[in-house]
């Protein structure tokens, strides 16, 4: 299950980065994409590979 979770996190990270790229001129979207990336930092921290 953890492998699937990590795979999904990778997909989310790519999407959030893409969102940021698309929203270069939209502070609101860019900031919220940043928040997703912050939560992904936490999510990766709490699902470490052993």
């Amino acid at each position, binding site marked *: 299950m*953890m492998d699937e979770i990590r795979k999904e996190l990778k997909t989310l990270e790519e999407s959030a980065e893409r969102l940021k790229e698309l929203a270069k001129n939209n502070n609101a979207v860019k900031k919220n994409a*940043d*928040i997703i990336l*912050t*939560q992904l*930092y*936490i999510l990766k*921290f*709490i*699902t*470490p590979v*052993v």
Partner: protein
Amino acid sequence: MNYWNPYTETLPREKLEAIEFSYFQNMFSYAKANSNLYRDKLSGIEIGDIKTKEDIKKVPFTYKEELRKWQENVEPFPYGGLLGVPIEEVCTFRQTSGTTGKPVYVPETYESWQWRIESWCHILYMAGFRPRHRLFLPFGYNIYVAFWEAHYAAEKLGCEVIPGGALDTKGRINKIIELRANAMAGTPTYCLNIAQEAREMGIDPRSLGIERILGAGEPLPEATRRRIEDTYGCHCFDHIGSTETCGFAGMCEAKEGLHIIEPFFLVELLDRETLSQEVAEGEQGVIVITPLGRRSFPVLRFNTMDVAIKGPDSCSCGRTSRKLMEIVGRVDDIRKIRGVLFSPKTVEQLVRAEFPEIVEYEIVVVREGIMDEITLRCELTPQLNGAAAEDAARRLKERHKIKTNLTCNVKIEPTGTLPRFALKAKRFHDMREVIK
């Protein structure tokens, strides 16, 4: 579900330790690259030198005094050389209480704050806080971190939070009743003060309906924890943390020591004499901490100066994290009086366990000629006076001698003489260095 994160909370020890070592290496590299303090402090050590867990000892301890030094007149204001991110990323200012000297200013970014909150969720969840709880926080949080952490973590795990600042104690009691709050987090001292005030208002603290209390901001000796449970008819839990390191250990429902929040923190418990060897189970050690994912304020091997008894690596709750069985006190609170080591915590244990009639107390140590004198100033419940008060004073003197090997004077003070504390209580006054 009994765990906040069943994956990390039940990992086998060797796996947890491997993760923590890998996180430590990451944090070492990050701190060295991004914090002026560690660029300087680690100038003779490279990441290649940290190959095994034993190599962690090559990294020097960080002391609070250093943190102060690296902030004083050092840019960028006010965080100085401790900042681990560009200052534009800082979104919240916090500071230490300044109990032991000049406060340390602590920068939090959105990321570091979320990391702290996630760690705190473990503390609340293992203490049984759930979405059904309406949590009353009886403080104005101000610039201090603990209750902000409790607030945000409780929100995250689904509790309903009532911020109880800007009210006096009576107002808070009325608000608890009005909103039917059923959980609380507070300094142990203030939880007991609230109960005393409730009694004076004619309200039995047990009728308030508080089911769970988390102690914060002060040590919580077992006797005090039990007194709070008896007073409110609730479950009371302890945790430990600091502004510099975050909350790093909490009590589960088994109430047998504090679980370290792993793998958020690498906690070393080192012998008091040489600070070089991990102590064995049942022994006292100094707590040294590295938060492993907080980048706004990297701190490696922070010597907390707190002393704890090492617990077992297992618990009936099933968590595999290491445990601290008991927080003994701060290294600098343990004093030599007439040649005997004295910890104020022993007096707190004694008062809370055996003297329900003492509502407030303080310990004053002075030097009379060449002799150290201890005086316990006590306030008793208002209805107690005359022979009953004298009897309490006599018993306290006797029990103090047995518990500490030191004779003391006991002075019964009129009601309302001693200070009442909402945040960190300061009941120990060693005046020997002040008055010469």
